[in-house]
C-alpha cells in the first residue's frame, strides 16, 4: 500500500472511532471561545478530539498544534469526512483569516501564543477592519494606537465587526504613523475585547438580525507584544488577510450545486419544481424560470470547477489575486441564487412572520436579505473588479 493509501485507511478508522454519531448529521458548527456554547454534548467531544489531533487546521504546522498534513493528505481527510457526512468540528475567523496571516507574518513566540488556541477553539476572534469613514477606502482608517510604556493605547471606532458581542479578541488595523502616507502608517494589532475600554453595540440589519456590531475603543490597552510584524507595515498583512477572507466568502457561490447525493437535480431546481410545478415530461412547468435556473446551475458548476482548478494550480501556495475573481463571482452567484428562490416561491418567500409561512420559508426571506451584504463585505464587487484590473490584468491608473 502507498503511504497515501495507508493514510486514508488510518484516517477512516480514526474517524470511525472518534466522530460521535450526532456530528455525522447536518447542523450548526461550533465557534469555540473562552466560554463556548455547544448545541449538543457531542459537539464538545468532537471539538476536543479534532483539536487534539490538529485536524481543525489540518495543514498547519504540528509545531503550533496544527495537523501537519500535506495538500494530498488534507484532501483525503476532507473526502473521508464527507463520506460519513462529518461536520467540521470548529469554524472561526481564527482558522479562515487570522491563523494563515499569523503563520506568515508573526514571530515564533506570537505563533506559540496564539495558534494553538485557534486550533483548539479556545479564543473567539473577530475582525476590526472597516470604520464608519473607511469602507472601500480601507487604508484611510483612523483608529489610533499610541505606544505608552509597554502598552498601546487605542482610541477610535470599528464597524461591521462580526459577532464582536461574542468575541474574546479582535485583530485590528490601527494607525500608528499619523504623519506617514496612508498605506504606510498602519499596524496590525491584537486586542483583548474583555476590558473596560472596549464597548460593543450590535447593528440591526434589513434581515432583522444582528450579525455585525460597532466596536468603540476608549483608551483600550494592548501589550506591545501583540503587534504583528513591523510597526507601520501592517497594510501588507491586511491585504494578505483579505485574500484569505475573500477565498472564504467565495465558497458560498457553490450553493445550488448539489441536490443531495442521489439527485441529478440541483436544490434550486427542486425548489423550483416544488413551487412552480412540473409538466407532463417532468420539466419545471415555468419554462422561463427553468431556463434561468439551468443557466444558474451551469455557471455554478463552472465556478466549482474553477475553484478546484485554482486549488490544484496553487497546491499549498495559498490564495492570490485570483481570490478576487472567486470572491466577486461567488457572491454574485449566491445573490442570484436567492433572487431565483424568491422568483420560484412567489409570495411564500416574502413573509416576515406568522402562521401562513413555514419556518423554512421565513428563513429564506431573511437569508435573501442577508445576501445583499455578500457583495459588500470583504471588499465590494466593484473593489474586486478593481483588484482584477490592476493586479491581474495590469491595467494602469493613468
Amino acid at each position: 500500500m502507498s503511504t497515501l493509501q495507508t493514510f486514508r485507511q488510518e484516517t477512516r478508522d480514526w474517524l470511525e472511532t472518534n466522530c460521535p454519531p450526532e456530528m455525522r448529521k447536518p447542523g450548526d458548527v461550533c465557534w469555540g471561545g473562552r466560554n463556548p456554547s455547544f448545541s449538543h454534548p457531542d459537539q464538545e467531544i468532537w471539538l476536543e478530539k479534532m483539536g487534539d489531533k490538529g485536524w481543525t487546521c489540518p495543514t498547519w504546522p504540528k509545531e503550533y498544534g496544527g495537523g501537519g498534513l500535506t495538500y494530498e493528505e488534507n484532501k483525503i481527510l476532507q473526502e473521508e469526512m464527507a463520506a460519513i457526512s462529518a461536520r467540521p468540528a470548529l469554524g472561526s475567523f481564527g482558522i479562515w483569516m487570522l491563523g494563515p496571516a499569523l503563520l506568515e507574518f508573526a514571530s515564533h513566540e506570537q505563533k506559540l501564543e496564539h495558534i494553538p488556541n485557534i486550533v483548539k477553539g479556545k479564543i473567539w476572534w473577530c475582525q476590526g477592519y472597516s470604520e464608519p469613514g473607511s469602507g472601500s477606502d480601507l487604508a484611510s482608517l483612523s483608529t489610533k494606537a499610541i505606544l505608552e510604556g509597554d502598552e498601546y493605547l487605542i482610541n477610535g471606532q470599528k464597524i461591521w465587526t462580526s459577532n464582536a458581542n461574542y468575541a474574546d479578541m479582535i485583530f485590528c488595523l490601527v494607525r500608528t504613523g499619523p504623519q506617514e502616507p496612508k498605506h504606510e502608517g498602519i499596524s496590525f494589532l491584537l486586542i483583548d475585547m474583555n476590558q473596560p475600554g472596549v464597548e460593543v453595540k450590535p447593528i440591526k440589519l434589513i434581515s432583522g438580525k444582528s450579525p455585525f456590531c460597532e466596536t468603540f475603543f476608549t483608551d483600550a490597552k494592548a501589550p506591545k507584544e501583540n503587534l504583528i510584524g513591523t510597526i507601520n507595515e501592517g497594510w501588507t498583512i491586511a491585504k494578505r488577510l483579505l485574500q484569505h477572507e475573500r477565498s472564504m466568502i467565495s465558497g458560498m457561490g457553490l450553493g445550488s450545486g448539489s441536490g443531495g447525493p442521489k439527485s441529478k437535480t440541483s436544490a434550486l431546481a427542486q425548489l423550483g419544481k416544488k413551487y412552480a410545478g412540473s409538466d407532463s415530461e417532468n420539466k419545471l412547468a415555468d419554462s422561463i424560470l427553468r431556463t434561468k435556473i439551468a443557466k444558474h446551475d451551469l455557471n455554478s458548476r463552472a465556478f466549482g470547477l474553477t475553484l478546484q482548478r485554482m486549488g490544484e494550480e496553487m497546491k499549498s501556495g495559498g490564495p492570490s489575486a485570483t481570490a478576487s475573481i472567486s470572491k466577486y463571482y461567488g457572491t454574485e452567484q449566491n445573490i442570484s441564487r436567492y433572487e431565483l428562490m424568491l422568483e420560484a416561491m412567489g409570495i411564500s418567500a416574502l413573509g416576515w412572520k406568522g402562521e401562513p409561512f413555514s419556518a423554512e420559508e421565513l428563513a429564506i426571506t431573511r437569508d435573501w436579505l442577508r445576501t445583499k451584504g455578500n457583495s459588500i463585505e470583504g471588499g465590494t464587487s466593484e473593489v474586486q473588479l478593481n483588484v482584477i484590473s490592476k493586479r491581474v490584468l495590469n491595467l494602469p491608473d493613468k
Partner: protein
Amino acid sequence: MSLLLNEEQQFLKDTAKEFLQKNAPISHFRNLRDSKDETGYSKEVWKQMAELGWAGILISEDYGGSNFGMMGLGGILEETGRTLVPSPLFSTALVGASFIELAGNENQKKEFLPKIVSGDLTTAFALEEGPRHSPTNISTLAKKEGKSFKINGQKTFVLDGHSADTLIVAARTNGEINDSVGITLFIIDKDTKGLTVNRAHMVDSRNASEIKFKDVEVNENSILGDLNAGYSVIEEVLDRAQIGLSSEMLGSALEAFDRTLEYLKERKQFGSVIGSFQALQHRAAIMFTELELTKSAVVGALNAVDENSNDRGRFASLAKFKAGETLHLVSNEAVQMHGGIGVTDEFDIGFFLKRSRVAEQIFGSSDYHIDKYAKLSEY
C-alpha cells in the same frame, strides 16, 4: 480527476502554439479568404499537422494513431482557435475519426483510419437539415432496395462538406421525423453519383456546404454501426464535438481578449490610455472572470470524455454553453473597445466576431444547451 494538463498534453499544446504562430497565423487565414481559395484551407499546412501527429490523436495505436485522447486534442484546438486557422482538424480528426473509431467495423477501420492519420483522407459529417441544431430532425430518406439503399434528401451546414473526400451521412431508415430511433449512418464517397455539393460561403469565411442527395445508391457495407441505431453514436460523437469545439472557441476568446487588453494599454484618449478608465477596466475584469470559468468548464469536459464519465452529456452542454456565452461576450466587447478601427475589415479583430457567431451555432447554441442540461438534470 485533475483539471490540469499533464506534461505530455502541455507539450502538445506548446508545440501547437509554436507551429501555428509560425506557419498559420491570422494572416494565413486572411490570405485564404482574400485569394478566394477553392479548398478553403491549406493542404500543405494540413499535411504538416498530420506529420505532427494531430490527425491521429483520437485514433488507437492499432491503426497508426497515438490515442492521446481529448485532453491532448483540446489543447491543440485551443491554439487553432487563437489563429483562426481553417483545417480538417475538427471535422476529420475529431468528428470523422470518432465516428469510425466508435462505430466502424474492422474493415472500415482498416480502410479509413490509417488514411486519416496520414492526412490523406478528410471527412465531413452531414447531419443538419434546418437552420438550428436539431440532431433528430432528419427526413433525408435511405430506402432499402435489395442489398443497397437509395438516399434522397438535403443536408445543410455540412462543415468541410465541399472539400471532404468522404461523407458520414445521418439518414432515416425508419420512423418519423424527430424520432431518435430509425436513424442510420452511412459512409459515402464524395464522388458517388447523385450527390450535389454547393459550397456555402459563411460570414466567418470558413468551410461549410449544402449537399443534395438524388437517388444516391449505396450498398449495405456503407452502413456505419447498426441499422436504425445510429443515434446513440451520434450523441456520443456530438458530445465530443461540442467539447472539442468549445476548446477552439476558448482559444478564440482568449486571443480576442489578449488583443483587446493590449489595445487598452496603448490607445490614448483624453490624455490617458483608455485602459485606465474604470468603465473599461471593470468590463475587462468581468471578461477575464468569464474566461477563467470557461477554461474550467472546457478542461472538465475534455477530462470527462477521457475518463468515460457517465456525466459526459452534461459536461458537453456545460462546455458549449460557457464557451458560447463567453466568446459572444468577448467578441462583442473586443470590437466595441477597439472603437472605429474595430469595425474595419483591415483590422483582424472583426474575424473573431464573425467566427463567434458561426461557432455558437455549430452543434447547438447556448440556449440549446441550457435546455439540454436541464433535461439531463431531470427538470
